[in-house]
Structure formats: structure tokens, C-alpha cells
């Protein structure tokens, strides 16, 4: 198995992916997000599109690309739901932008770092969704559930780590 290594700053900052991967992974995540709860309802606690956005944002380390990807995935995630189209789009755009910004400054290939980032960004998204629903859309019945959100973030972080390892294999190593 070839050992991956960074040979220059460019490779350290941006990882490249095949266009098919870039298209298929988010769409697959969106589809599973819709389909898996039908098999077992508690699986709705997962946020696979968020994991996909986080992975590509911190891998690209490009804020604009992270923002655009987060917006696109969030909007697509809003389509099959019952809410307004754009709520997840806004939340994931901010998450994508922030993840790309942090990806420039920390070692995102470390497993612990990845788990902590997923935990933090999942909580950030929950906070953003709460603010958007409660104050922008004026849905006063939308209550904060801190314990539920922490559990949700922990589960997503646990699921994200092996998914990140799988997605690492889809990177294109230009200097191998």
C-alpha cells in the first residue's frame, strides 16, 4: 500500500477528487439521508449530507468551494422535507465556509481532530438551524433540545470518522 505524503504546500492545502466522486458522494449521502430512516427511524438522527460537506470543505481548504458545496447540498436536503427550502442551505453554507477556514489552520487528517471537528460543526449547525427557525422564520414552537443535539453530534462524529477514512481513499494523489 503506497504511503501518502505531502510534498509541497499546494498538496497540503488542497486535495483533489475525481468529478464523479464529487457528484456521487453528496448525492449518495442525500439519498441515504432520505432512505435510511424508512428502514429504521432512529437513523434520522444522522446527518450524512453534513458529513459530506465537512469532508470536502476541509479537504479542499477552499472557502468559496466549501460555501458553494454547503449551499447546494443544503438546498437539495431541503427538497424532500416539509420545511422551507433554504434553511439547511444557509446553515450548511456557513458550516462549509467555516470548515474550509479551519481546515487551513489545523491538521485535519488526525482522527481525533476529525471527530472533534464533526462534533463541533454538528453543534454549530444545530445552533444555526435553531436561530433560523426561531428568529428568522418566527417559529416559536421550535424549542431547543440541547441534550438531544449533543447526543446527535456525538453520534454523527462517531459515524463520520470511518466515513472520512473511506473517503480518503478517493483522493487523487497527483504526486504519487
Amino acid at each position, binding site marked *: 500500500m503506497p504511503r501518502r505524503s505531502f510534498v509541497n504546500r499546494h498538496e497540503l492545502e488542497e486535495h483533489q477528487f475525481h468529478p464523479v466522486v464529487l457528484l456521487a458522494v453528496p448525492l449518495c449521502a442525500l439519498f441515504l439521508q432520505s*432512505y435510511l430512516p*424508512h428502514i429504521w427511524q432512529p437513523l434520522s438522527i444522522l446527518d450524512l449530507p453534513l458529513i459530506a460537506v465537512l469532508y470536502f470543505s476541509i479537504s479542499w481548504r477552499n472557502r468559496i468551494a466549501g460555501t458553494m458545496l454547503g449551499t447546494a447540498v443544503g438546498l437539495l436536503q431541503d427538497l*424532500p*422535507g416539509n420545511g422551507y427550502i433554504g434553511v439547511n442551505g444557509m446553515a450548511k453554507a456557513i458550516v462549509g465556509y467555516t470548515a474550509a477556514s479551519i481546515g487551513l489552520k489545523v491538521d485535519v487528517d488526525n482522527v481525533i481532530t476529525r471527530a472533534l471537528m464533526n462534533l463541533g460543526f454538528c453543534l454549530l449547525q444545530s445552533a444555526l438551524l435553531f436561530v433560523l427557525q426561531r428568529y428568522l422564520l418566527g417559529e416559536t414552537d421550535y424549542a431547543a433540545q440541547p441534550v438531544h443535539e449533543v447526543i446527535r453530534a456525538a453520534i454523527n462524529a462517531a459515524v463520520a470518522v470511518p466515513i472520512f477514512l473511506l473517503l480518503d481513499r478517493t483522493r487523487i494523489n497527483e504526486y504519487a
Partner: protein
Amino acid sequence: MESFFSRFRSELVLALLLLLQVVGLAAQMGRVHYASREDGHNVRTVRAWSAHTITPLETFLVHVGGGLRNTWHGYLDLRHVRQHNRDLQYQIDQLRLQQAGLAADARQGQRLQQLLAFKQQYVWHTVAAEGGGTGGGDQTRILTIDKGWTDGIRPDMAVITPDGVVGKVRDVFSDSSQVLLLNDPTSGAGIVLTGTRSRGILHGIQGGRLQISNLLPDDRIKPGEPVVTSGGDRVFPRGLPVGAVRSIKVDPEHQPYAAILIQPAANLDRLEEVLVVTDVAEQLTKAALAAGDDGDEAGKKASDVVAERLPGLTDNTKPTSGAPAAQGAAKEPAVALPRPPQAIHADRYSPGYIPPASDLTPGAQDTQLAAPAQQRTSPAIRPPKQAAPEDQP
């Protein structure tokens, strides 16, 4: 200026995308809510595209999963099937006996309902559909089914299972539809608590739970009390099982109302096949009403039927033809009315002291009223006649 745009390019992109989505949200909030729309063709194009893209794949996976399950259960896992078959045959025999008795009770119940002029809706025609996908995430409770406009599905149709109510159709596409489940926060249904007959509105809350929040606390409402649809929402036929009361407590955010949590009768988290109620029939049709007006026995008023069967003040053995009725009207009714006892010292409060209004003169002095009852000659103020011994009850 150029350096500003190049320096803050990513921030500007983020701000622009957020602004566009805020504008999009504002445009959506100005539209009519989905659930109140009647025309299924006017769904948002993007949602339709999404459904057309995702639904076939979901349906394929559901069919593959169903095929695998059927193969396992139908061909491989056949242990104890003979014993089960014998048990089931015995149960069928027993149920046939019970069915005969229940059928007689049902016929009697229908006759009684017709007598009491209950106008009750019944499920008349349903379309079976298979659940395929969800809305994604735990914030919305949506079920995608594989039947659409071409199968006769229309928005706001009730969706049920044999266990109970599931939800209602929200968006309808050509070959698929989206069902808004009862436990979605935007969903609602009119319900009746069968024990107390309290009517309320059931809606979903976060976490996929069901709650009634417009009823005041009532000690008579106990956990386990069945909840059925009231039919008042014009979506769900009345009398369908919804669930049972799980708990009741004071709602801290909406005092003095109670927060009554409901355990749904149908398993809303695991819906394989559902029934869409495409047509409801009213039991008491106009034809039946017209037939009832023709003097049919079944068309009599409930009060008449009850009056005939209960012991009353009138003599039921009397002939009821027209001619004797006129004679009967002239006669004094043979009724033993209770009468107050005669006063020992009559005063102005005694019965019969006040003359009838027809004997009084407007503007006259009330000397008549001031006179003792015994001195007046008006028949109205005459002391009440002592009842005959045979009239005493």
C-alpha cells in the same frame, strides 16, 4: 476597491448566497401553505424534480428488500408452518362464529343510527400504497409513497393503516406522493377522547411525538384513554383510531392548558404499506332521508320512538285517527297534576293571589291585589280546589 473584492471574495460569496436564500425564504413564506392547496399540479417544480429523481430509486430498493424478505419468509424460513396452519384454521372457525354475532349487532347498530339520523362518514374506497422514503432528518416527518395523481391520489386525502391514522397527503406527483405524518410539527387532526368526549386538536411536536395542547386539565382524562378522529377537520373520517393517552400534565408554556401526550396507534416510524382514503361515503344519503319522510318506520324521529316505548303521560292505547283526535282535544286530559296544598292563612304570596294579566287594567290602582284573597270574586284568585281523592297521585 479591487483589492477589497479580491481580499474578501470568499466572505462576499458567502454573504451573497445567504442573501439570496433569505430572499427565497421570504418569497416562500408569502405563499399559501402547502396543506391548504387543492390543486395537486401546482406543486413546486423543484420538489417535483426531487421526487421524480429519488422515488424510483427508493421504490427499487424497497422492492428488492421486499423480494429478499419474501424469499426468506416464503421459501426458506418455513419451520412450524403446519402447526401454525392448524392454529390459524381453528382461529378462523372461531372467528366465523363471532362474525355471525357481530354481523347481527352491526345491522342493529346501523338501524339505530339511521333512526337517530346520525350522519356519519365511513371509509368507502382506499388505495394501497407502499412507503418508500422519508423527508430526511428528524425535523420533518414525511413519507413518500409510490402512488400518485394517476392512481387517483389527491392532496388532503387521509392516509391510514389498519392500526390507525397515519397522516394526510401533502404533495401529489404523477407517480408518487408525499404524506405528511401526524407527528410532523406542521400536521394536525381533530380528535375526540372517547372517555370524556372532549374534542381537541392533535399535532406533532419535536421528537416525533403527538400532543393535544388545547384542552384544559381534566381529572377524568387518564393514561390509556383511547383517542379517535372527530371528523371535524374534513380530512379524516370520524371514528378512526388515533392512539391512546400516554400522559397528561400542565403545559408550562401555554398555561392553563394541558399537554396531553398521545401514543399513536399506528407505528409511524415503520410504515411499509398504507391505505389512502380516496373516497368516503355518507351513510345517511339523501335517498335514505327521502324514504324516511314517507312514513317509513325507520324514518320516525328518535323522540317519537322513545316516547312510544317509555311510560308517558298520554294514553298510548288511545286511537290516533283524525276524528277521535278532535274529540279528545275537547276532553279534559285525565292527568293527575300535582297541586300545592291550600294555605291556612292566605296572603299575597299564596298561590292564586295574583290575578291573570287579562283581568288587570293598565294604569289602575292595585287595590285588587291589596284585597285578601277570600274577598275577591275573580276565579283566578279563588283558592285552589281541593283535589279529588281519585286525582291524588
